[in-house]
């Protein structure tokens, strides 16, 4: 008995000592939504990219923590004079996790697969300008475009454009095989996804031996999970109003970052009375942006006046175009023929910014006579009813794709907004590579949208990063959906 006890004690001491000597090499990261599968080339869910991007899969280029384009599998590239031919030089000695070599044939396979007819790539437009992909030699890929495309290198850095191998592509949904510094280990469905260090990685080795993405869908459960230490990091923590409590706790580091999520009050421009510019302007005047930001994003959201991220250099501040002015809103409604306001419906998807923002907006619009019936919908219904069938008056949604102002030019998009002047600007953007010129065009586009009051522009969705104070290297912002763990390590 005595012996056992001292043995146990010795073991425990050894364990403690061991833990103190070397820095930790394991990590549990919390995430809200479980990815439906793990193939970023066959699904739109951000959760797929969060787990796999940069960790398991890599593309020709990659998007860095500040949103910049960095080389990845392509060590360098040259662009022809006319901007139509890109020649990528690949790193050599790169192996997929199943041991096969990466060659230019894999790149050709991946891009051809993504743009093929019948492809289920969720971001097919990214590849629309590609005319041909040629594997010039094992380490060189030549891509020819139909016309010059300013954002091509950026596009190739998306999670949807990662390079996969023909041998393993079909199985990537269940067991992803990439070239990244982490290998897929295990997926306990509904619970967690584990990745481990790839010992044969071609680039700089990662510090973590093992990382677990734990799925915690319920916000109420996320807070105790953090506080009890079960989860050591949340790239975007759904802690809501409990944030001050966590900020005040010295065990945690809280980093408020920006996302690419323009959170907007979408309006159905194709349906009366919202097809009337005056009515849409009235709605904009009736919105108290600060109150919405306080109530729906803990006061953390950055106000926006058009569909553009304030972090982008081409951003113009248009938040002053429609200041909060209920009297003016009423006057505009009367001018438009609705002196007593009108009844409408607002459909709200599940995220808290939408559900809480919706309650506040309904209360604000009621002040000017617009009575909103609140209809909460699941994502499935939202996609069907609002996004596909345009069966809605108002909705609140965060458009999280980066640089996506062009969605307003899509003819069948759910805003039902049609403006030839705007479409011209976007068309020009698509063929312009000069950065200064591009910024100019982006500014024009932002102004047109704000003037037309296409939607109610609310705020840029904040990213509430919470992690253990001793953890270093997490991304502060989310320039692309990813929980990039390649530089994450525990402080000694």
């Amino acid at each position, binding site marked *: 008995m005595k012996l056992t006890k001292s043995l146990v004690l010795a073991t425990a001491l050894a364990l403690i000592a061991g833990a103190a000597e070397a820095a930790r090499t394991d990590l549990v990261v919390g995430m809200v939504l479980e990815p439906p599968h793990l193939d970023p080339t066959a699904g739109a869910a951000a959760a797929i990219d969060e787990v796999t991007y940069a960790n398991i899969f890599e593309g020709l280029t990659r998007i860095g923590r500040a949103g910049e384009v960095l080389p990845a599998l392509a060590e360098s590239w040259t662009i022809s004079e006319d901007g139509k031919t890109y020649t990528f030089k690949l790193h050599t000695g790169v192996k997929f996790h199943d041991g096969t070599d990466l060659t230019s044939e894999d790149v050709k396979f991946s891009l051809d697969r993504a743009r093929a007819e019948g492809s289920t790539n969720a971001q097919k437009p990214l590849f629309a300008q590609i005319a041909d992909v040629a594997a010039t030699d094992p380490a060189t890929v030549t891509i020819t475009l139909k016309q010059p495309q300013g954002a091509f290198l950026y596009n190739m850095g998306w999670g949807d454009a990662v390079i996969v191998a023909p041998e393993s592509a079909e199985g990537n949904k269940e067991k992803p095989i990439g070239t990244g510094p982490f290998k897929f280990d295990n997926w306990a469905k509904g619970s967690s996804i584990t990745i481990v260090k790839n010992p044969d990685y071609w680039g700089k080795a990662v510090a973590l031996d093992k990382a677990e993405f734990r799925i915690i869908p319920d*916000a109420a459960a996320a*807070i105790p999970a953090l506080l009890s230490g079960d989860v050591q990091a949340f790239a975007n923590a759904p802690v809501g109003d409990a944030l001050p409590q966590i900020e005040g706790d010295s065990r945690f580091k809280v980093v408020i970052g920006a996302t690419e999520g323009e959170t907007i009050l979408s309006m159905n421009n194709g349906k009366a009375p919202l097809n009337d510019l005056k009515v849409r302007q009235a709605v904009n005047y009736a919105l108290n942006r600060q109150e919405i930001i306080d109530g729906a994003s803990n006061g953390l959201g950055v106000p926006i006046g058009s569909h553009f991220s304030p972090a982008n250099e081409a951003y113009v501040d248009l938040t002053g175009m429609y200041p909060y002015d209920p009297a003016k809103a009423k006057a505009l409604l009367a001018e438009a023929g609705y002196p007593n306001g009108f009844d409408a419906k607002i459909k709200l998807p599940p995220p808290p910014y939408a559900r809480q923002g919706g*309650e*506040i907006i309904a*209360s604000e619009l009621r002040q000017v006579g617009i009575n909103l019936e609140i209809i909460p919908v699941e994502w499935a219904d939202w996609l069907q009813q609002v996004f596909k069938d345009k069966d809605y008056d108002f909705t609140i949604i965060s458009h999280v794709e980066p640089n996506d102002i062009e969605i307003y030019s899509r003819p069948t998009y759910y805003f039902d907004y049609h403006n030839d002047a705007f479409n011209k600007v976007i068309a020009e953007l698509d063929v312009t590579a000069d950065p200064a010129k591009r910024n100019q065009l982006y500014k024009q586009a932002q102004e047109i949208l704000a003037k037309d009051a296409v939607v109610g522009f609310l705020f840029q969705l904040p990213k509430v990063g919470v992690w253990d104070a001793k953890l270093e290297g997490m991304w502060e912002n989310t320039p692309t959906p990813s929980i990039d763990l390649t530089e994450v390590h525990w402080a000694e």
Partner: protein
Amino acid sequence: MSEMEASVSAPPPAAPRHWLRHAFANPSFVAGFVVTAAIAVMALLSFFWTPYDVTNLVVADRMKGMSAQHWFGTDHFGRDILSMIMVGSRNSIAVAIVAVGIGIGLGVPLGCWAAARGGLVDEALMRFNDLVFAFPALLSAVMITAIFGPGAINAIIAIGIFNIPVFARVARAGALSLWPREYVLAARAAGKGKVLITVEHILPNIASLLLVQGTIQFALGILAESGLSYLGLGAQPPMPSWGRMLFDAQTRLIVAPHLAFFPGMAIAITVLGLNLLGDGLRDVLDPRLRRQR
């Protein structure tokens, strides 16, 4: 869950006269009656007066603690919690009443019909009961609200559907044991039709059973509503609901526990009151148990 309590234990009692006099000598009944009446008064009062307007959001005043202005504090939109509890009681009561109404309105005729006809009709009803009972109730309610969209009305339907077989079962069991009674046989011999007998003799005699079951289902309805609202499938804003208040409170538990405390207490007290009332009623109306006291 406690629907089973009644359905397995009670053979139908003959309705005692002046049972109310016995009732007010029963401490459980009195306690339950007082609590239930207080909640009902609160709900009625909320139609005419509440301390604050619950549709008015004052975001600047969010999550204030208890104070002289706001006895129960304010919620995450700066609404007065006391006012919300008052108005929310309407929702809980309405959902529970209508759900019980659906159960009685459809279940009792079905049960009586099955008892009167027997044979194939009875068998079919029992199979229908089996079918409904075989479905996990909460998950099925989730499915119903997923189809028709969340909202108070759909929550009522979802809860009400599962009340139908409960009342059908109770009514059938009660009626079956009455049909062989002498006065019923006498009425049949006198040439009265089955419908008439059911209305004149059966229903009055199973009324007390249904009353007891009703209070139990009522309490369960309130709990079920709070569960559905907790999943975001019950009453929708701006209509306050106790379950939704709890749902909104859970992420703020650590910074503002009062947000969860008051609606939780409101649910617990109401359900407790109804259960006490039901217990008291059963003691009073079931002569066998009364004899033992």
